[in-house]
């Protein structure tokens, strides 16, 4: 017998005595927040949570965005972007003589090549105010997972209407078949005497521009 059949048979035998169906799952937890996506209370909560997680956050108008990108990238000499990043964002990243490398055009970058680049700028799919979380799904402007992982500085441009209040609202907006990365602040460890150290293996700085 294959191990597959062996395990499944054992499970069936283990459950054989069960006759009553299990009770239904109560879903009376909060699924939709009191405030609509992008509303002032939601944005306020998001900013508060992100700061609490040691991310850098700035709220900007569409007019201020390009300057804010250039400003955020002050310490970076080189930036990697996905092929389909909005040309306006790419142009802003290229200001101040920064080198902009496009992943996949002409070639996909190796991990070692990514390691030599200072920063990455991407868009995102959805933000969750209640938990201060931003989710990437590889959609337009976001690129492969590796480009947001290896460079030391991650700049995310998030639109106000992409920010929802609750976790269930965010899950409902996600496509499970895409590779998903949920980010809450820069990477961190608390493994040595529970003292939190920001920035271990991922980007050591998470910089969020909320456009509204």
């Amino acid at each position, binding site marked *: 017998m294959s191990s*597959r059949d062996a395990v499944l048979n054992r499970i069936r035998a283990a459950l054989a005595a069960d006759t009553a169906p299990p009770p239904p799952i*109560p879903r009376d*937890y909060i699924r939709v927040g009191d405030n609509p996506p992008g509303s002032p209370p939601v944005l306020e909560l998001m900013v508060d949570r992100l700061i609490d997680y040691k991310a850098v956050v700035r709220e900007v108008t569409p007019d201020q965005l390009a300057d804010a990108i250039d400003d955020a990238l002050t310490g970076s000499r080189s930036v990697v972007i996905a092929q389909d990043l909005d040309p306006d964002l790419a142009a802003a990243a290229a200001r101040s003589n920064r080198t902009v490398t496009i992943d996949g055009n002409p070639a996909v970058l190796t991990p*070692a090549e990514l390691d030599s680049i200072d920063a990455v700028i991407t868009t995102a799919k959805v933000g*969750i105010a209640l*938990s201060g979380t931003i989710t990437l799904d590889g959609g337009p402007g976001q690129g492969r997972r590796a480009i947001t992982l290896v460079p030391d500085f991650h700049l995310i441009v998030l639109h106000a209407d992409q920010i929802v209040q609750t976790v269930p609202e965010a899950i409902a907006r996600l496509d499970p*078949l895409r*590779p998903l990365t949920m980010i809450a602040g820069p990477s961190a460890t608390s493994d*040595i005497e529970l003292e939190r150290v920001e920035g271990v293996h991922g980007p050591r700085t998470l910089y969020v521009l909320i456009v509204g």
Partner: protein
Amino acid sequence: MSTFLGIPRKHAAQEESPLRGTLPFPKAARKELANGQLRRNLAHATSVIRTKRAQVVDEMPDWEALRDAGAATKTQVMSNLPALLEQFEANVIARGGVVHWATDAQEANRIVTDLVRAQGVDEVIKVKSMATQEIGLNEYLEDNGIAAVETDLAELIVQLGHDKPSHILVPAIHRNRTEVRDIFLAEMADAPADLTDEPRRLAMAAREHLRRKFLRSKVAISGTNFGIAETGTIGVVESEGNGRMCVTLPDTLITVMGIEKILPTFTDLEVFLQLLPRSSTGERMNPYTSLWTGVTPGDGPQNFHLILLDNGRTNALADQVGRAALHCIRCSACLNVCPVYERTGGHAYGSVYPGPIGAVLTPQLTGMHGHGDVNSTLPYASSLCGACYDVCPVKIPIPDLLVELRGRAVDADRGRTIPGGWDAAMKAASWIMSNPTRFAAVEKGLAAGRLVAGKDQKIKHLPFPGSAWTHSKDMPAPPKQTFRQWWKQTHPDTDQPGGPA
């Protein structure tokens, strides 16, 4: 319990495993209790996590509703496991993954080793995983000439220190900063010579040490937090980014998943992604969560192997206690609130699963074989105070399960020719407690116990059958008044505690 004079029986299932200790809990605990450094580190760490957890849980108005949903989901999963696993398997395959099944540790280890060999490498990177610890994968790979590098900072500290993890979530919780520096200087070839014991410097040394490995590794091994049947999606929840490195950069990813980690639908994540981080690290959300489904062309590993692991889980499933224990999402909240864990630390439990849930899960996964078996001592490693149940995000009634297991340990001893003192004591207690009049009569007599107690108000030696109790612990002298007596006196209008006020 350790006084039984019979010959300890050795069972086939008692062979060495990372899931079972070699010493009975009271013996192992006594050794750990002598370690003052360990107790200080643990007291500090558990109290910090407890406070953080309480804060972030308190800010959730729907926390109890989330727990109810989590508990009910797990109940459904268990009763529907064959169909969910088959659905999950089909979806992983449909998305380009390869699925293997392993009945036990040996089989899982062999599958992983063959897969690594097929890639022609002798070093792999690993993200922290309870399942791979449970099967002793690192040791098995090492015996087969493959180095498995732990990339979680705490696991790295444990690995470099030739040590064992002592906590599910923070495995090096028993080490302080100076010990960590000394381990790094002694064991990490590229550690800076002027390394101080500042946590930030230590973390950065680990970053440097591991980065080269991340960038060049061809094969990574991970565990899972969730597997979604409906879609074939797998989730790994972490903090440091080492998990993202492992599940994203190498060409080949091998994931070992216990069969109980299934969730039916993608929507269920809305419950568990709220319950887990708050219960575990006391954060609203952990820094990184990675979710992937099979293989995504052009992004991430292009070879994905999933190993579905039984290793005692089907035994546990067949039993009411075991089935409840399989609901565990390994958040470690129960460890951090447990007064017994806080004082003895994780090593005393002898299993990769320590603390309250370990005391239930370990005997369920590897069996409880009567008196000679160290597992029979684990259900006693609890004060039954109930704190573990209160914090458990999926409402596992750990104290009830421990009481049930204690009863079974006693029953297992019934076959012996000489009745054990414990057995007699328990029988007497149940005879008394099952009848309110008898119980009240004994309560009145309890004050006499104060006379037996020494100056420190502890009864150290009771006559048989009470000796079975006092052999392993001092018994506090009974208070001047019982709770019921106090209640009567202070609440003259009510019959009993819990009655209308």
